[in-house]
């Protein structure tokens, strides 16, 4: 069982004093994931907020070995590191058990890095890939990604007088990753930290690749007050927008079921990126979003062998 008392005693892997924005979900994601193992960890990060804000030379916020190479190749870079480890271990040059983790935002994971991720997972490297999904290219100034939800206004899918924000649904990356038939795939949220740390711990323990998709609210991009990050993350879960589940060796399991589903409208209302949806001519999009969520939820329940 994960306990806060134990967690606070753990050695720090990401130091405070990094330059991520107040209220940013990314460092919370990173800390929660890294709490989940007591083994030494080597981390690789894709170009993005978490990378630029933690390694501004000559400083680094990382207390563990770290590598950044480029935007789209965190998975392939870490697959090289993990393979090097196996090569040296085989020769008896390394004794320790080391864990390998790659972090990427939704840009580096859903979009430009999808191929490298898919390749690394298929090859079966013993690594954990974590996507901190803040639903747009936040590091370059809030441009839409394939993780940006329907209707959201971003700087490349702006809400205008003719077009009401992003016209497409978000990609279901977690589902794509389950199709890789890897030992462990899960979706988590920083609002449900116990659930997330438990999932990360499973991800580190399985023999082979694991993928975690973690919703990472962004006050700047989502347009909400930075103190609300955890609340926003929580309501994404209770509205079934971001269900918490895991797929272990093809076995689907819902890890949290909201007692009462909260309407998506309430969640959208709290974020400036959806403001335009509340104009009378756009409210039908809110209904559309609600329909998508309900439909996806029903499908998920079926996969988990549950009834609504």
């Amino acid at each position, binding site marked *: 069982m994960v306990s806060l008392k134990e967690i606070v005693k753990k050695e720090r892997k990401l130091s405070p004093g990094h330059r991520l924005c107040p209220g940013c979900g990314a460092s919370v994601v990173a800390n929660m994931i890294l709490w989940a193992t007591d083994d030494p960890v080597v981390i690789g990060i894709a170009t993005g907020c978490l990378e630029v804000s933690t390694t501004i030379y000559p400083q680094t916020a990382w207390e563990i070995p*770290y590598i950044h190479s480029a935007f789209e190749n965190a998975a392939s870079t870490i697959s090289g590191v*993990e393979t090097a480890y196996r090569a040296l271990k085989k020769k008896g040059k390394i004794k320790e058990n080391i864990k390998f983790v790659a972090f990427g935002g939704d840009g580096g994971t859903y979009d430009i890095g999808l191929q490298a991720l898919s390749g690394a997972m298929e090859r079966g490297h013993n690594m954990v890939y974590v996507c901190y999904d803040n639903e747009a290219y936040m590091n370059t100034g809030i441009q839409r990604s394939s993780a940006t939800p329907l209707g959201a206004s971003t700087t490349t899918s702006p809400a205008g007088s003719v077009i009401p924000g992003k016209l497409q649904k978000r990609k279901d990356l977690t589902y794509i990753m389950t199709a890789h038939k890897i030992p462990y795939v899960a979706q988590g949220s920083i609002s449900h930290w116990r659930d997330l740390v438990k999932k990360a711990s499973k991800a580190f323990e399985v023999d082979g690749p694991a993928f975690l998709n973690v919703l990472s609210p962004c006050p700047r991009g989502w347009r909400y007050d930075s103190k609300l990050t955890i609340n926003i993350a929580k309501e994404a879960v209770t509205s079934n927008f971001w269900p918490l589940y895991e797929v272990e060796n093809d076995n689907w399991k819902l890890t949290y079921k909201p007692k009462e589903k909260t309407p998506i409208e309430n969640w959208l209302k709290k974020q400036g990126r959806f403001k335009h949806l509340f104009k009378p001519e756009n409210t039908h999009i809110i209904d559309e979003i609600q329909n998508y969520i309900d439909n996806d939820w029903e499908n998920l329940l079926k996969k988990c062998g549950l009834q609504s």
Partner: protein
Amino acid sequence: MVKKHVEVGTTAVAMAMRQINPDVVAAYPITPQTAIVQTFSQYVADGKVNTEFITVESEHSAMSACVGAAAAGTRVMTATSSAGLALMWEILSVASGLRMPITMINVNRALSAPINIHCDHSDSMGARDSGWIQIYSENSQEAYDNVIQAVRIAESEEVRLPVMVMLDGFIISHGIEEFKTLEDDEVRNFIGENKPKYSLLDIREPVTHGPLQLFDYYFETKRQQADAIYKSRSVIEEVSRQYEKLSGRSQPIIEKYFTDDAELMIIVLSSTAGTAKSVVNELRKDGLKVGLIKPRLFRPFPYFELAEALKNVKAVAVLDRSCSFGAQGGPLYIEIRSALYELVQKPLIKNYIYGLGGRDISLENIRSVYSDLEKIVKTGRVEKPVSYLGVRK
């Protein structure tokens, strides 16, 4: 004991890789490099090496995995061609910028479009400013020798840069030639143990690789990198000297063929040098003072050596197997012309673009170049500084 083989060039390269026995290879197959990856895979499958082979899903991931594995302190190799090298482009400069001693074989092939699988140097010439040391091989023997030396050069304490070894696609990669190999032990003793620095797997001394450097530090880092590749010249020469002692084969930075009294000189890279040598032999019998220079290194560029070798020459023809579109000539020509600038008495110089997309370069083509040079010397001027050799009008 010297072993002789009669095999295709890709086998010579794969044999060198087997003897090097790198910790990690990450590679993606592409024509004409494919046979290197296949032959090496068989070595892995048969336990002839204890390499971990990462069968990546692209060349971009091949180079990315090489960077990761090198940062983790292992000896790493890869091989590619053409589009594969182009796809790696972004990570080539990451590899050199992070000072990763990776050895890569590039089997030269034309870039698309139009798609073409045959030899020219547009792939590696496109990567000439990526911060990699670039070594060109004339034949299978040189490819074998260069691959082994590349490992030593890359990992040298003073260098710590990636090295790219070129051989001509199909002409050498698929041509059957005789070459000699060293004993496995000789190769392993020559390259020695890899001594990693700042390994990611050193968990007691955690290091951050690849931090963000802006206007306050980036410039100094790049300056150090420029110094490192400049200084690699002496390391390359020293490694070649030691390799010569071992193998009996001399591989200077520039190979000079009948240059002492030569008045007319051709400068060309790789396999075409072989063709040109036989024309030199022929014309020398006729009493013509012709010579040939084959640079082995393109990066760092051997400009001192070339200027020195050309100072008493009357006319020079530089043969480029790639086009630098919109430039004053091909990449080799531009560099050589610049190398001559300091000379008080400069030779006349002409550039030929030849052999694009594998267009054959014949003895007759080379003869015509020497005959052009004769005319240039007679008239004292170069009418057309850049022309095309062997192209239809």
